[in-house]
């Protein structure tokens, strides 16, 4: 980009060709008021606050949409412009029902701030007092049309950041409103609750329920950390007041592929939770829990563990940072004397690991770090989504898929055996193979790609080539129920529209077949869909440190014969999937943040910090090393997990030194 020179308010300033007048002003420290502009969203010139006079233009023009050009002569704060800005503000105030005293946004409202700035102490126009709707039907956020200035930031955040197109303008002119789908309530709409609109709203028209009246933004402390909720591990900004969670925001929309956040990261982390486990508890002979000191619990535990340690297993949540995972592993190995250890999602990690190993054995490639970063989704021209429901498990990934389809017309092939439609509006081709036949389909696809465009031995081993012989098209058609034409379409979309990415998730892993992962890696290898040492393949992982736990070898798997389990559950709340596996484990120790059906089952319950009370390192699913910072002081002097391990170790006569 070349440099350009402009004259702003009589001063020569430099700018970049291709930027807007607003960007040049901001880069040169020249303030312009804005309302509809937000960094990271497209500009539309709706609010007219940033109007400037440009010498060759007859009328004032919005700086946010005017391209900066060489030798432009611009004035930003003439009497006329300031008069117009004031008028715009007054019209905005009269057009809807803006009552600051009981608005959640008061104090951080951009309209209010400009009202103060322009010293608006009365409005010269008559008030309209329109009767408008408040939609509080949704669990997470509220849309109050009374406080809306129609800047459209929520609509652009919904379209460009979450890329879900739930919000749009409805009707025209004086009757214009923010419309949710086709005039539905938010609860019944297509909204997936990323909450980008909540963060984008400059007034109190959109606000989140869980943070309501917990504190004004400027009274809050802000801590940057990461979200533990899924393998994407998004950067989040956590707002707290008086050691309470208030709100979670994305650090910014601009140049942030994870800007959308999602319902889990933005809302669920702040949602009301079950009661905390505050004190250690030991189940008595009658089956009732007794609260006790950590010392007493450690004593009971030590006694029991000393008897049983040979058959004792450990299971841990990969929502925990690497330091805690390491400490847990050492505690299990050195103190309990057991190497029967796993994470809650360890089975998936083992399967992926095995799939990669097989691929590497036959191709001679090295290293676990073989998958591409999720940013690559935005560079893809074709995507195969197989056995994955990212809207449910890793919503930021599905936002990126939708953005890619919206912006690049990326061709999306969805291979799905669920009843549910996955990204239906964005899908080029939907394949619904017979349940369990995904492997046949993927192998068939690999064979078709090789047959169509023969590849060298470097890309595909003889062993793999031979394994594909059986996947003749008619056989694949019969096994999968997918017709030949559709199979050829997938082949052509993925094989010819490069770069192409394959994304797979839990649905595929449930087949419990590592060969499927090997085939997926081969698909990328055959078609040359790679960047340097990475293949354009993404596996969706369920927890922020799933990858970290895997790299720390915590996913070896547990011994079926063990007669006791030490479960470091931390702040996991998903007891439904875990409960069936815990039946018949024998003696059960649960270290958890919250009371749940799982703690009910336990023989000994120990307290554990929740995500915001921890710090440590994480490895996201695409291999980014991330630092989680402590957001809250642990409640009531709650011990960190490491201190609990040390205490039990001492009772057992071990000196476990953890750093």
């Amino acid at each position: 980009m070349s440099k350009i020179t402009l004259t702003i308010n009589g001063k020569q300033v430099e700018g970049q060709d291709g930027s807007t007048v607003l960007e040049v002003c901001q880069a040169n420290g020249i303030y312009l008021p804005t309302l509809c502009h937000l960094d990271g969203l497209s500009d539309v010139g709706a609010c007219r606050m940033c109007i400037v006079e440009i010498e060759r233009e007859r009328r004032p023009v919005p700086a946010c949409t005017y391209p900066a050009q060489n030798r432009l002569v611009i004035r930003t704060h003439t009497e006329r412009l300031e008069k117009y800005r004031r008028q715009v503000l007054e019209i905005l105030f009269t057009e809807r029902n803006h009552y600051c005293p009981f608005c959640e946004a008061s104090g951080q409202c951009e309209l209010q701030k400009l009202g103060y700035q322009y010293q608006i102490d009365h409005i010269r126009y008559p008030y309209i007092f329109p009767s408008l709707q408040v939609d509080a039907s949704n669990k997470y956020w509220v849309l109050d049309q009374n406080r809306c200035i129609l800047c459209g930031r929520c609509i652009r955040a919904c379209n460009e950041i979450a890329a879900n197109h739930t919000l749009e303008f409805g009707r025209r002119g004086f009757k214009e409103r923010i419309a949710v789908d086709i005039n539905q309530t938010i609860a019944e709409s297509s909204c997936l609750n990323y909450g980008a609109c909540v963060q984008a709203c400059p007034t109190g028209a959109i606000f989140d329920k869980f943070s309501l009246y917990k504190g004004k933004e400027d009274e809050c402390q802000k801590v940057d950390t990461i979200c533990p909720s899924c393998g994407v591990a998004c950067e989040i900004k956590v707002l707290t007041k008086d050691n309470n969670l208030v709100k979670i925001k994305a650090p910014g929309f601009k140049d942030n592929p994870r800007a959308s956040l999602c319902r889990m990261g933005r809302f669920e982390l702040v949602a009301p939770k079950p009661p905390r486990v505050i004190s250690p508890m030991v189940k008595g002979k009658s089956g009732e829990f007794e609260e006790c000191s950590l010392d007493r619990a450690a004593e009971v535990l030590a006694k029991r563990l000393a008897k049983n340690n040979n058959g004792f297993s450990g299971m841990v949540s990969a929502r925990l940072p690497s330091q805690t995972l390491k400490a847990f592993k050492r505690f299990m190995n050195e103190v309990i004397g057991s190497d029967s250890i796993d994470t809650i999602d360890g089975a998936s990690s083992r399967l992926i690991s095995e799939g990669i190993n097989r691929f590497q054995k036959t191709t001679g490639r090295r290293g676990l770090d073989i998958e591409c970063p999720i940013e690559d989704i935005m560079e893809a021209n074709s995507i195969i989504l197989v056995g994955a429901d990212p809207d449910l498990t890793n919503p930021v990934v599905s936002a990126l898929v939708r953005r890619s389809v919206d912006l690049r017309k990326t061709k999306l092939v969805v291979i799905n055996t669920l009843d549910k439609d996955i990204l239906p509006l964005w899908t080029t081709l939907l394949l619904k193979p017979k349940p369990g036949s995904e492997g046949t389909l993927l192998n068939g696809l690999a064979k078709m790609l090789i047959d169509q465009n023969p590849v060298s031995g470097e890309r595909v081993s003889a062993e793999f080539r031979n394994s594909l012989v059986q996947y003749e098209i008619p056989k694949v058609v019969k096994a999968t129920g997918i017709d030949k034409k559709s199979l050829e379409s997938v082949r052509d979309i993925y094989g010819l529209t490069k770069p192409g990415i394959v994304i797979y998730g839990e649905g595929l892993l449930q087949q419990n077949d590592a060969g499927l992962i090997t085939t997926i890696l081969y698909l990328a290898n055959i078609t040359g869909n790679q960047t340097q040492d990475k293949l354009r393949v993404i596996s969706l992982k369920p927890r922020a440190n799933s990858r970290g736990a895997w790299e720390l070898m915590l996913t070896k798997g547990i011994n079926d014969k063990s007669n006791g389990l030490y479960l470091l559950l931390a702040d996991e709340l998903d007891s439904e999937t875990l409960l069936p596996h815990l039946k018949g484990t024998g003696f059960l120790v649960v270290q958890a943040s919250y009371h749940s059906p799982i703690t009910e089952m336990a023989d000994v319950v120990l307290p554990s910090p929740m995500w915001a009370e921890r710090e440590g390192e994480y490895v996201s699913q695409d291999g980014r090393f991330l630092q989680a910072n402590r957001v809250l002081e642990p409640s009531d002097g709650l011990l960190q997990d490491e201190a609990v391990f040390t205490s039990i170790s001492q009772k057992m006569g071990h000196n476990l030194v953890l750093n």
Partner: protein
Amino acid sequence: MAKVKVASAWLDACGGCHMSFLDLDEILIDLADKIELTATPITDIKEFPQVDVGILDGAVGNKHDEEVAKKLRANCKILMVWGDCACFASPVGMRNLFSTEEVLKRYYTTESTSKDGIIPSSEELPPLTKVKPIHEVVKVDCYVPGCPPSPKAILYALNELLAGRIPVVPSEIMRYD
């Protein structure tokens, strides 16, 4: 120097703006040297004499409010208004979103303030009209918004008037909440 004569009244309001004035606390003692309060809700005198400064808070919500506003305007040189209701019609103006019947029914029959669900009516009670900010009824010279205005903003405005200037509350202390 002769004291500046002040008269004030509250219209359709909660009275919080005058409370905020009283929240000037010990500063009121200094002000008493410079200002003479005549007819005000604080002195409980209703008939306005001729004054230098008239002060109103609250919105105009019925005929009576309109009459009081006009009377004070006629009896003062400078009219200052306090609070969001006076400056912007709201919060009181929220009732413009509903019909008078709906408002009265809600207030007298569904809330704990109602005794037997009877909406009081009398010829002496002025009927509710559409809520307006004061400057839609009489000319206003200066505005101190806030709900209520902070004592700081009120003091700023009074001091400016005492210094012979028409106050405009500076951005730093202006608040709408």
